[in-house]
């Protein structure tokens, strides 16, 4: 993976930069000893790692502003970081950068049930946002599988999704306000407990900008009343085509499940041996979850069952109680872990139109055979967000490279099918060089123009999202 050559000028000034940061924050929150900064050398795309110049852990918006002002003056690149669970290398440092972590900023600032929102510091983890309101019957809807660890800051930066976003939307649909600090140290307040912008939609623009426009320090999030209950149904099919057609029919029927999850034979087999979830022996499996009162759940599962039966399912299992439900979800929830036990894997994240599912799955199978690497498919079928898991052995020379080439082929296939390179994990460094597959130069130029306005010196997370070649002049001007 290409990264820009570090600035020797910055490296040479390391001690001065570190001293200035130590003057601004208390000493223990500036880490420059390689032993301490080691934990920050990569994110969940662990194949790529680099020690940063130093790591700072500010405790307030004011301290974040101080840090950014200093870095701006010293012309040091800054890489914002939440929990480092990015799968795209979004939080990966360069050797001449300051990693700015918000993990100390975790407070709940305000809970307002009348306005149905919560204001938190951005380093708070996703799950603990729901934790702060669940006793009162509320929850925060976006639920990435990493929700125990990942932060709201990282969720905002990546516009994270989750299993339940078919019904509730992704981060951008549940975000009401932000406090953000731009690279020059200006504190920006966007939105609040009210809905929608008067002028431009800054919230929408910042959400998903991968830490390139500003450092998010606080967020106002929409919270929702918990549904009365939820229940999944498991349906096994003899072929991916039939499963795909069934998904389409369910969506058309007017039922809006909270989740429609898909697993293929490979994943089912691995998961079965790992967690004994009791999944049927079949080519494709759907987990469809609906919400409501017990009677409403019965009605909806009744409709879904009728639709599924028209597609000759191999098995159709309706959860009767919480135990059944947990067993149905068990395998899906352990899928990534189970695949990881088997081998190293690379998790892709392209999205395709739901109608293209069968065709794309078939092509992925062919590519898997062509490159000689196994692929398991587990994904959010309701919205076409695929997660092909390419299995490889990192210790076997050349396999990582083959895996990356195969991954790129699959993502190109997603774009060609009318979809996109990434549905929820972000571009980071991983898909940076594929951006031209989806976008023309003018499309990319328009996006980079936005960064020019908010971060004219291109110091915030500069080596991410856009192909390095496309940003070279801008970064050099910094």
């Amino acid at each position, binding site marked *: 993976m290409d990264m820009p050559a570090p600035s020797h000028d910055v490296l040479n000034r390391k001690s001065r930069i570190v001293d200035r940061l130590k003057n601004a924050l208390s000493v223990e929150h500036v880490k420059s000893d390689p032993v301490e900064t080691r934990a920050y050398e990569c994110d969940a795309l662990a194949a790529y790692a680099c020690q940063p110049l130093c790591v700072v852990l500010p405790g307030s918006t004011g301290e974040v502003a101080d840090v950014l002002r200093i870095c701006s003056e010293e012309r040091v690149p800054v890489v914002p970081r939440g929990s480092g669970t990015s799968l795209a290398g979004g939080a990966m440092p360069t050797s001449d950068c300051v990693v700015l972590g918000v993990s100390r900023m975790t407070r709940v600032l305000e809970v307002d049930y009348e306005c149905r929102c919560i204001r938190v510091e951005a380093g708070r983890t996703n799950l603990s946002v729901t934790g702060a309101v669940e006793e009162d019957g509320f929850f925060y809807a976006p639920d990435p599988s990493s929700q125990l660890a990942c932060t709201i800051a990282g969720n905002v930066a990546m516009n994270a999704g989750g299993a339940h976003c078919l019904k509730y939307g992704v981060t951008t649909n549940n975000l009401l306000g932000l406090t953000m600090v731009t690279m020059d140290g200006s504190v920006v307040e966007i939105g609040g407990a009210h809905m*929608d912008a008067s*002028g431009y939609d800054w919230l929408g*623009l910042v*959400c998903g900008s991968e830490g390139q426009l500003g450092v998010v320090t606080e967020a106002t999030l929409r919270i929702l009343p918990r549904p009365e209950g939820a229940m999944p149904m498991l349906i096994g099919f003899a072929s991916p085509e039939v499963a795909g057609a069934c998904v389409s029919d369910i969506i058309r029927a007017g039922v809006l499940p909270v989740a429609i999850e898909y697993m293929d034979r490979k994943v089912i087999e691995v998961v079965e041996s790992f967690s004994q979830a009791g999944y049927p022996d079949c080519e494709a499996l759907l987990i469809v979850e609906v919400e*409501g009162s017990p009677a409403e759940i019965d009605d909806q599962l009744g409709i879904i069952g009728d639709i599924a039966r028209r597609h000759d399912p191999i098995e159709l299992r309706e959860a009767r109680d919480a135990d059944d439900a947990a067993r149905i979800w068990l395998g899906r929830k352990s899928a990534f872990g189970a695949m990881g036990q088997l081998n190293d894997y690379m998790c892709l994240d392209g999205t395709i139109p739901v109608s293209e599912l069968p065709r794309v799955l078939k092509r992925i199978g062919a590519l898997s055979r062509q490159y000689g690497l196994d692929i398991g498919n587990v994904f959010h079928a309701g919205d076409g967000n695929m997660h092909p898991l390419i299995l490889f052995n990192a210790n076997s020379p050349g396999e990582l490279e083959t895996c990356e080439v195969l991954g790129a082929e699959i993502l190109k296939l997603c774009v060609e099918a009318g979809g996109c*390179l990434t549905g929820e994990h972000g*571009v980071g460094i991983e898909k940076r060089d594929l951006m031209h597959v989806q976008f023309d130069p003018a*499309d990319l130029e328009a996006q980079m*123009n936005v960064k020019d306005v908010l971060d004219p010196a291109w110091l915030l997370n500069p080596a991410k999202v856009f192909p390095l070649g496309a940003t070279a002049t801008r970064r050099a001007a910094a």
Partner: protein
Amino acid sequence: MLIPADERELAEAVSGAARPLAVRGGGTRPVGHPVDGDDLTVAGLSGITLYEPGALTLIARAGTPLVEIQAALAAEGQMLAFEPMDHRTLLGTSGEPTIGGTVAANASGPRRVRAGACRDFLLGVRFVDGRGKIIKNGGRVMKNVTGYDLVRLMAGSRGTLGILSEVCLKVLPRPESTAVLLLAGLAVDVAVRAMSAALNSPYEVSGAAHVPVGLDGDPVTMIRLEGFEASIAYRAERLTDHLAEFGPVEIERRTEGPESATAGWAWIRDVEAHGGTGEDVWRFSIPPREAPALVESLGDARVVLDWGGGLVWAAVEPGCDARRSISSGHATIIRAEDETRNRLGVFQPEPEPLATFAEGLRRKFDPEGILNPGLMG
């Protein structure tokens, strides 16, 4: 009047423009500062180009009349869930609202409170920037975080950053059944509490509005439920119990016809109460809890509350500055004389550094200043 027939002609019209352009779709939503420029209408770029009911997606050229889209969706039992308002009654305009104008104004109706705004249903855009370059962003899939989200930036930018040529929208199934719970005689503060109680229940309320002076002269609070027949019957009953402290509830049911027609939702959505009067009309988006204080501070103004109190439409004495009545959120002038609009500013002034960023974006996307210059500041 410039009437390009396709995207390429649109791009040529922009790159060849010698003077600023006043962009319009149907011209039914002339909100913003008056623009001095040559008229350019996008109405020539018309037609649905892709509609996949099984994938809940629709792509249309920006000039496509909204009615055409709504008819196509209705034929498949689907709808635009953000319930875009029709500004014609309120503004006394004529013509056909277009999907491009709807998106450019981020026009969202009562269901916004549950389902989301127009911007939440916008999956992709194609547009022509101020130099005549054709740019695309987003796409036709439900989940997409590839690059910056210019899709949402374009929603609500009212033609000041680019002229939309094509939009892709997520659509939703139309509910089988609707029930509206009506509460009579509530004071504004009590009504906001009642709406909040309803919205905070697990029954997925899809509309919560209050009018201090309803059609029969008395206050009425409206709570809407939508979904499958049996579910709505159940939820209406449970919600009635849940709202018992606010007095007796009358329930209106409907299982067919346009969903918004039920019990006056179109009347709320289009703010018909303020149509054809001589007052200025202001739109406030505020934290719902602040609605009672806003209404009180507006004095004699006639108001309509939507979004559980989060959206307030006020008809106020011409020329007066109603923006002073809010402490958070934003106030927009929807209808007033040009003099008032210029003096008070149509949109909420943005705090720094956002105002500078906004100017910076306009300079990047429209360096010559030809796209609706001055409309948004």
